[in-house]
């Protein structure tokens, strides 16, 4: 069933998140704005600690208790997730309309229960056939869910499925576990999958298989994916568009081609230049990631930026659109051909 609707599935408007810590309030996300279209795969790239995972958790409504989210709105399918009733979010949104693929498929399974138990626990609460607020698990739904699970596990190329369901997580390989995680993310028939560094814990050879599988399934089902990664290669493999984050600020969003060919943000340029290649020696970006308790004013990248000027220290740049569908927040964007 597809209702008539606009092209944007998720629209984040000026959302900030802060954490109360022992050394003070850490401003982990600073006025993030981001849109995700229906059926699109968006990569969220940046260094470790830039706030990608926090943004993913904010959308899921699964922030730790010492975190506080503020902002204009997180509009998902016409609902504002910032103001939604938490019980409704837990029942109808989380795990149902928005699902999650974790970074580490080893520890995301409870080691004491079989894989089958954990899959059917999920379906008990998040099956597409479940009525809102339903508490039990009627036999007819259970049977339908069983079929649904078998079909999807087969689709993600898992072997010997009935036996697999009786196994414990430690009896299954990492690649198979991540296939299971992807299957579990798709079983509730969500509209958005948030994948948080889904291949970081895997071998390089398996990474590519998993990424291809995720892309295939998302395209075939028309599901949007928000994928966080620190690895530009991963973004290149499967994303339609990419957003770059730095120290809690979203600085550039571009279609994948334009992003790699002609970035408008000096930071993106430096990131791309730091990729190892035949002619380039290995290079880093001078300077350190800033402290988020006392972040630099204005554009947070200014202490490390080669294009820095006084205005960068004084104020946050407005968003400009140097090319169609290419957004950048920089006082001195690079020329886009």
């Amino acid at each position: 069933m597809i209702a008539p609707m606009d092209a944007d599935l998720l629209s984040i408007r000026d959302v900030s998140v802060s954490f109360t810590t022992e050394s003070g309030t850490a401003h982990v996300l600073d006025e993030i704005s981001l849109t995700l279209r229906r059926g699109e795969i968006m990569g969220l790239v940046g260094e470790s600690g830039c706030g990608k995972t926090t943004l993913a958790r904010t959308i899921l409504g699964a922030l730790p208790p010492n975190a506080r989210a503020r902002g204009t709105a997180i509009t998902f399918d016409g609902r504002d997730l910032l103001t939604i009733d938490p019980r409704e979010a837990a029942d109808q949104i989380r795990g149902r309309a928005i699902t999650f693929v974790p970074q580490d498929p080893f520890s995301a399974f409870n080691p004491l229960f079989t894989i089958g138990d954990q899959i059917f626990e999920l379906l008990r609460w998040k099956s597409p056939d479940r009525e809102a607020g339903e508490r039990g698990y009627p036999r007819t739904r259970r049977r339908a869910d069983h079929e649904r699970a078998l079909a999807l596990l087969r689709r993600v190329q898992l072997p010997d499925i009935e036996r697999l369901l009786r196994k414990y997580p430690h009896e299954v390989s990492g690649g198979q576990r991540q296939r299971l995680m992807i299957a579990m993310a798709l079983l509730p028939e969500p509209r958005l999958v948030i994948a948080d560094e889904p291949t970081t814990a895997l071998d390089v050879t398996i990474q590519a298989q998993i990424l291809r599988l995720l892309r295939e399934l998302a395209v075939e089902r028309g599901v949007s994916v928000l994928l966080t990664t620190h690895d530009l290669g991963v973004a290149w493999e499967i994303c339609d568009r990419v957003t770059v984050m730095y120290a809690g600020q979203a600085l550039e969003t571009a279609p994948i081609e334009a992003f790699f060919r002609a970035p408008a943000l000096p930071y993106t340029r430096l990131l791309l230049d730091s990729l190892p290649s035949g002619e380039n020696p290995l290079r880093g970006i001078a300077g350190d990631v800033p402290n988020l308790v006392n972040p630099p004013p204005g554009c947070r990248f200014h202490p490390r930026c080669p294009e820095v000027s006084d205005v960068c220290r004084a104020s946050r740049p407005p968003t400009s659109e140097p090319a169609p569908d290419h957004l950048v927040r920089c006082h001195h964007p690079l020329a886009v051909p």
Partner: protein
Amino acid sequence: MRLLAMVARRCLWMPPTLFGLLLIVFTVSHVIPSDPARVMAGENASASQVAAIRHQYGLDLPLPVQFLRYVKDVATGDMGKSLFTQRPVAEDLLARLPATMELALFAMSLAIAIGVPLGVVAALRRNSWLDHLVRVVTVAGLAMAAFWLAILLQLLFSMWMGLTPVRGRINGWGPDPITGFFTLDAVLLGDWETLGQALRHLILPTLTLALPAVATIVRFTRAGMINVMSSNFVFYQTAMGIPRRRIVWKYLLRAALIGTLTQIGLIFGNLIAGAVVVETVFDWPGLGTFAVNSILHSDYNAVMSFTVFTGVIFILTNLMVDIAQTMLDPRGR
């Protein structure tokens, strides 16, 4: 199946463990300065009468020989006769076992029924007033001497409020023995009045015995919960919107209980040992009062047998705990 292999391995270890236990008990009882032959012969016996008794019981043989005879006897179920009553000790112990087991099982069940939920709630509301209260009460529970608590309870509930019997296991005779557990036998016989009486007699000794056990269980459950609460699988299930109560009471609890379970095995041993004091205060006709009487009569054969008996109970309990643990945790299998 790995579980069977584990049980078989543990069973193979039991004879050497028992042998060690017997060796310690035997050595200790021969180190203490008490001459059983003299005790048996009586205060006015002549030296030759004592020597005759010593010879009759084989007490004049070299110690290693005596020990091997002792091991052989115990292995065939013969624990010798009481020096005081002249009755076979094994029979007396078996006759008193149900009373102690009934008390220990009630205390254990109560301790688990209170301790586990309390530990879970304390972990979920860490550093709340409830958590602090639980901590204070559990420290007090561990620190309080059992005989003192028992007397306080008797004073409060029996003497002042008149709610519970002061002592004993039942008024008059117990129900016809089927299992020897008064409550269970009363249920089997459909004798509700006896059941009520048996339960009322159980209340205070159970409470006394359970309090320190509750304290240990609460602390281990709380620590186990806190340990697994920050696991990735908890975050995953939370992020997937699985109801909190489901995550806590199904998935977290099992992980947390693995640590508690080990403690439960040790606690059960403590309960049997603690029964010596509690049974004495409440005049409960179990193994504990038997042990105290035997000590008072210098009935060293009975004391040795009591020690061996409780040792065997302890070994069996730990075997059961290991089995339960293997069933709970698939990684060990």
